[in-house]
Structure formats: C-alpha cells, structure tokens
C-alpha cells in the first residue's frame, strides 16, 4: 500500500487500565476514502480504540498516524478529526445552524463563509430549512443528521462515528445507513465507525475490523468476514453458524464427522494440521442445502426435529443420523417456497448436502466460546 494513500495507520497500539489490558497490539490502516467499521460485542474495547484514534484517551503503547503524521500524544484538537457520538452531544441551547457553525466560528471564517458553509451542509444532510430548530424540536434521525453535519463542518481528514445509529428506531436506522454511506462516498472522507451491529457493519463498511477482548481478530472486507471468518468467535458473532465439534481430519480435504466423511475445500481447511487431529467443522445455516438434485458427495442423512417460521424462510432443526453417536445437530435455512414444494414436516427424514466450498474447519484449539 502506498503510504501517501494511507489516511490512517494504527501501529501496535495498546491501552492498559492498571493491570487490565483494554486493547493490545492492534494494527491496521485505512486508505483515503475508505469506510472502516470496528465491530465487536460490548466491552471488547472497540470504543476505546476509537477514542485512542480521536485522541480522547492516551494509549499506552504503539503509534497512531493520521495523514502521514504521527499524532500519538497530540490532543483531539490537533488531529483534525470529526466525531459523531452515540448521544449526538448536540448543544441543546443552540439551533441546528449554530450547532453546525460552532466549529467554524472559532476558525476565523467570515460571516458569509459560515452562512454559505452551513447552508451547504444542511443541504448535504437533507435538512434544508430546518436550521432554526433546536435539537429538542428535532426527531432522532434529524438530530443525527445535524450531528453529522456539525462534525463535517470543519472538513476533518478523518470522520469517527461512535455507534451513530444505535439510538434510533429500526426504520430510521435503515434509511440513515444508506444515506451516511452515500454521503461518505461522495465526500470521499476516510471514516471509522464503531458498532456492535453486524448488519450495520456488513452493509456500510468497505472493511470490517472484528475486536474480541481487546484484540483485533480479523480485518477484512464484509465478504471475507462473512464467508471466511478467521475464528469461531468471528463466525458466531457475525451471522449464524453451525459448529460441528469433534470432527477428525482424515487427510487434507477430507474429514470424518459422526461416521460420515465430508470433503472440504482446501482453502477453507486447516491444511497445517496433521491427519487425526480433532477439528470443528462449521457451516452457515443458509449453506445447508436440501434436495436430491445436488449430487452425491457430502450428503448427510438427517431428521427434521423442529421448524421455525421466519416469513421468507424456515429455520429447520435437523438431527444427523449417526452410527457412532446421536445428538449431532444442524440448523438449515430454507426458502419458504422450497419447504412448501418439498412438503417438509417435522419428524421427516431429510438428507442434506454440505457444499464442500462452504464448509470451514477450525483446529480444536480455536474452539469457540
């Protein structure tokens, strides 16, 4: 990656509170104009990471580089970043206009410049004509837009969003997701967003950083993260995943699983493990296929034990027929139309197909929590 193209670089950053390590050894970088999402469960350290980048907290180790400048130790005011908080932190006594103009006034911009810029920003966030209103008179979504406009007003080199949509109701959230993403693309501003909502991360980000217990466990595109989760944690945190423990590696690409043998694509497996190793095999419910037309390899006989209606699809709970032991379970998401067509009912025997290139293999050491 060309350094001049790197907008943000975080190098081996760590943060300790006393003996507790909130973050350790986190490194990543963002290209100019890229939208990064930091994803993780609450308490994993993702907000701490954002605050370190912003300069709101000082880090114990490592460096933060923004636009090629090492800003470690510089205060937030000298990092040229825009921040939008979960609570928006709009000044209640100032109108939307004045909130947006807040940062401009102290930069010595002239009155005309400020008026023009505020109008431009109000347009940008779709709030034309609402400038006179006070935050309390605005809906949650509108407040969010004002907060965004305010953070963009000073033309930051980097935009930081801290759970920006979590306080909104579902519909507005969906709407704003798209709008923020579009706006970000139009402005070409490098953006880092913290969220605990995987769907938000998947739909908005160019790249997702998954944090678990203060460590960066995966850094990749939404596709990478979803299709090739690096660890069982990532796999279970983002989307649903069937884990089949106590499988055994027969040889590269072939694994024993409750008396059945399954083939697994080489790039999805733990090629480094010696034959005989215990592994966990994982597959997403929507990748479990049913129907005879799918060939003969990787077919596993099962019985439907329960069916959960989910509108467009059903989630089937399946029990795998097994010579050695029973109780091996799989979930499968099947389109409602297909369920109706095949007349699937509980207690019915149903062979399923596990496509070899959709299976993931994790070493026993990585077994998920």
């Amino acid at each position, binding site marked *: 990656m060309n350094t001049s193209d790197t907008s943000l670089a975080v190098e081996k950053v760590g943060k300790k509170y006393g003996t507790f390590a909130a973050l350790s050894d986190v490194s990543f970088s963002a290209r100019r104009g890229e939208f990064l999402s930091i994803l993780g469960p609450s308490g994993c350290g993702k907000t701490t990471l954002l605050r370190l980048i*912003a300069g*709101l907290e000082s880090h114990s180790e490592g460096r933060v580089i923004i636009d090629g*400048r090492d*800003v470690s*130790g*510089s*205060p*937030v*005011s*000298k*990092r*040229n*970043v*825009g*921040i939008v*908080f979960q*609570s928006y*932190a709009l*000044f*209640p*006594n*100032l109108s939307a206009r004045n909130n947006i103009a*807040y*940062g*401009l*006034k*102290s*930069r*010595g*911009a002239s009155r005309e*410049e400020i008026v*023009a*810029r505020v109008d*431009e920003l109000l347009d*940008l966030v779709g709030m034309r004509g609402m400038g006179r*209103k*006070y*935050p*309390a*008179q605005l809906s949650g979504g509108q407040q969010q837009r004002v907060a965004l406009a*305010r*953070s963009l*007003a*000073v*033309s*930051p080199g980097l935009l930081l969003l801290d759970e920006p949509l979590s306080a909104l109701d579902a519909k507005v959230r969906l709407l704003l997701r798209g709008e923020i993403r579009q706006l970000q693309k*139009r*402005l*070409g501003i490098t953006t880092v967003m913290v969220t605990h909502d995987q769907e938000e991360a998947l739909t908005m980000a160019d790249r997702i950083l998954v944090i678990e217990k203060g460590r960066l466990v995966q850094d990749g595109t939404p596709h990478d993260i979803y299709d090739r989760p690096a660890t069982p944690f990532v796999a279970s945190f983002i989307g649903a995943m069937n884990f089949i423990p106590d499988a055994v590696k027969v040889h590269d690409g072939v694994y024993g699983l409750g008396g059945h043998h399954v083939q697994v694509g080489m790039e999805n497996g733990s090629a480094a493990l010696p034959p005989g190793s215990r592994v966990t095999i994982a597959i997403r419910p929507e990748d479990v296929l049913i129907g005879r037309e799918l060939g003969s390899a990787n077919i596993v006989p099962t019985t439907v034990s329960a069916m959960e209606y989910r509108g467009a699809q059903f989630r089937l709970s399946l029990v795998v027929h097994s010579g050695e032991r029973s109780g091996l379970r799989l979930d499968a998401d099947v389109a409602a139309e297909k369920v109706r067509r095949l007349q699937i009912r509980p207690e019915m025997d149903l062979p399923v197909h596990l496509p070899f290139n959709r299976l993931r293999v994790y070493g026993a050491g990585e077994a998920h929590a």
Partner: protein
Amino acid sequence: MPEGGLATEAATASARARVDDGFWARVDGERWIKRLLIVALCLWLGVVLVLPVLQLLVKSLADDQGGFVGLTHYVKYFNSPNLFVSLRNSLVVAVLTTLLSVGLGFGYAYALARTTIFGRGLLKGVAMMPLFAPTLLNGIALIYLFGRKGLVTTGLFGLLPGVDIGVYGPVGIVIAETLYAFPQAVLILVIALKMTDARLYEAAQSLGASPLRIFFTVTLPGVRFGLMSAVFVCFILSFTDFGAPKVVGGNYSVLATDIYKQVIGQQNFSMGAVVSVVLLIPALLAFIADRLVQRRQVASFAARSVPLIPRPNPRRDVFFAFYCWLVGGAIVIFYLTALFASLVKVWPYQLELGLWHYHFSGTGGGGYSAFFNSLRMSAYSALWGTAITFLAAYLIEKTRQLHGLRQLAYFLSLAPLALPGMVIGLAYIFFFNARGWEIAGVFVANPFNWLYSTMAILVLCNIVHFFSVSFLTATTALKQMDREFETVSASMGVPFTKTFVRVTVPVCLPAILEIGMYYFVNSMATVSAVIFLYSADLPLASVAVANMDDAGDTAYACAMSMLIVAANILVRLMYGASTAGIRRRSQAWLTR
C-alpha cells in the same frame, strides 16, 4: 471532493493551516490550562479552608502566648464535667431536632411532591421562610410566642387561656432548631420524592399492594438516600447552631454556646479552639457517614425512569392540605409575630403600632448602613461565590486531568458542610490576622494578612461557609449535561473556554441563579461566621440583630430581621421571575 465547493475548500485550507507538524502540535495548551486551574482551585481551597482550620487546630494545642502545650487543654476540657453535659445536651437537641424536622418535613415534602393539593408553590415558599431570617430571629419570635409574656403563654394577652410550655431551655432550643432545619429537610426530600420511578408504583399497584404496603416497600426505599441526607444535614445544622441556644437556651449548655462562653465570656481562645475541635468531630463523622452512603447511590439510579405525576385523590389531598396549612401556618405565625413585635412600641406593655423601631436611632449595630453593607456583602458573595463554585464544580466534574487532585478538591468542597459558622469565623480570625508563622525556624510572613477586616474576608468567609450546598447544586446540573460536549468541541478545535461560555453556562443558568440566590439569602442572614470578622467600617445587619438583641433592643432586632427577610424575599421573587423568564425564552431547548 466533488461536492465540496468553495466554502469547503476555504475551510479545509484553514483547518490544514492549523494542523502543522512539530512540537506545538503535540503540546495540548488546554490540558495545561485545565491542570493549572485545578491546581489553582486546590490552592484556593487550601488557603480559605484547610490552612485556617489547621491554624485553629494549632491554636488548640498552644497556650495564650503561643507556646506549644500539647493536649493540655484537651485533658482539662475532658476532665471537666461540663463537656459531657454540653455534649449530651447537644446530642439530645440534635437528635430531637432531626426527628422533628425530618418527620414534619417528610409529610410536607410528600404533600408538595406527591399530591395535587392547592397552593403548592406558596406552601413551598412558606417552608423556605426560615432560610431568609437570622436564626436568632427564631429564638426571638419564640419568646414573643411562648415566653412568659408570649402570645401563646398569655393567651393573646389574656383573651384566651394561655399555656406555658417552658420555652427557656431544651424545649425552646428544639423548637427554634426545628424551624431552622425544616426548610433544608423539605428541600432535600422534595427532590428525592420527585425522583422516584413511576413504574415501580404501577408495578406495585398491579400486584395488588395496599397503599400502606406500597409506602413501606416502594416509597420509603425509593427515598432512602434523600432521607439519610436530610437526617445528616439536620443533625449537623442543629448540632452546631449557636443562635437559638444563645437566645432561648437559658442555662441549658450546648457545645456551640460553650465556644461562646470560652471566647466571648472568658477570652480563652485556646479552650474555644478545643471546644470547636470537639464540636467538629461528630459533625465530621456524620459528614463522612453521609458521603459513604451517598457514594452507593450512583449505582441505584435508573437511567430511564418515568417521572411520577401525582393524580388527585380527595381523601389523601384533604388530609395533606390540612397538614400543610397547619405547618405552613405555624411558620407564618412565627414571622408575623416577629413583624408585629417590630411594630409594637413596648412589648407587652404599650401595644401601639408604628415604625418606631425602623429608625434604628439610639441603638447600636449601625442601622441602615449595616443593612446596606449586608446587601453589598451578600451581592458580592452571590457573585463571586457563584462564579467560584460553578467553576470548581466544572473543573471537578468536566475535566479529566489530575484525577487525584480533583478527588481531593471534591472532598474539600463538601467539607464545609461539617464546619459550624462559628468555627469558620474563629479559624479565619486566627489565620488571616496572623502576622506570619515560624516554620522550621524560618519566619514566613502571612501573604493574606491584608485581607483582614476587609469586605473581602467577609465575602470569602460566606463563600466557604455556604460552599458545599452550592457546589452540589452545580455538580448535579453539570452531571445532567452530555459528557461529550467537551470532546465534541475539542474535536472541532473549539477551546473549552468557549464551550463553557456558549453552552455550559447557558444550559446551567437555572442552577447558577439558584446558587446565586442561595449565597445571597444565606449571607444576609448569617451571624455565626461573620460576628468575629466584621470591622468598624463594615457593620452588618445580621450582626446588628445579634448586638441589638444582646443589648436588649429586641424590637430593633426584630425590625432589622424584618428588613433582612424582606430583602431576601425580594431576591427570591427576582430569582423566581428570572428563572420563569429563562424557561419561557428557552422553552425550545429545555423541553426534552
């Protein structure tokens, strides 16, 4: 930046210009300014609070010539039977007063916060009346009502059968102290009762709990912190007050009057300091206990509580209306009696009414010049006190630098709660009038000596005396503000000072005005702290009340008290009007 446009380019350019590389990019000027301010705050608290109290402690260990005598005075005091008599009396008075004022105050506050009775605004105002008058007036009015020749005792001068309750002694002290502590209890309990979550009541009602059961299982636990706070505040107030015992105490000695006896009666400062220290201990214990209890409160706050809106309930409301008008009426009668007494020519022998005693000629204390001095002093105290208190609360609450020092400053800011006014006054006289100190054989001149016998020292003394409550008010207001205001501003490169002026202060304006009013009203009425400190040029109204009462000019004392009360009511009304104005003007952003 396709959508940027010219304005964006210009702003970007100026932003880039600010963010330059090099040393200054790393130096956070604001961080240093905040650190400096925190250090300054701690130094200020050190000078106006810690050092004077230390000086008092040193004084209690020294003889009159300043030689160190160790614990001699303490040994002497602990060996005299008087200590235990006074200590026991003080405790009896404080416990009874606390029970009465918190008990009466709870019912009153309950009516204000949880019922729909008529005239709650007025009733609240009436309950605050005792805050507006010097505590001496409580004693004086008490004698006009219950003294040998009092209105009640003689049954309105013989019109009705009279009752003599034997007001001189513990009975009188407890009544006067209850009157004194009552408004504080009501203030604290109203807030506590208002903060309860309505959903708890809905839940209890849906489970079929009886009103009594709801009271014991929901209401009381819900206000337990407020209740404890009220108990501690009333205890400390009545334990340390000196005005009422001096006027109606007779020979029922309490610790506060013991200080008076030692200092004024016998000019024995060392012993006075000893008694002050002894007086400090239970107050300090109560203070620490309160802080420990309150610390646990933080966790019990529900973020999304639903405020309880009282609904009419005829039976309950009639009962509480009756109760409130009874208690409120009693308070009003107290002050009406004092007003009446100030207008009567010679109580109780010549009951002609007139403004004889509002001329203040032929009596001491300084008359109207004292009154105007008091107005001036109170205005300065309100102005400076509010500024310093709010700034202190801001620094402690809203900065992230120097955690340890901020903790210290927080503790010191609450400590004056446990300091009786008289102790502050004495400590100030010892500290600020000292020429200097021998520290490790080196004479250090006192850099604050020039403050002595100025208006400034009176103002400082008031600020310290009334610091804690104001500080808590400011802290509460600041806590309600979004924690990220400062960070947002910083990220936009706006200095925190600007955000302080443009956002923090306007949003907290109601609390700021309240603090100002609190300082003003208390500075007008206070006697105990300033009685040692006022100087020839600056007689004060409240001190004049004490002196005139002392000299037997009770009617003049009443008249002066009435002026004080009138000024305070006026300021209270101004406060009410201005907050109403602010509320109207800023309705847009206050309705959240």
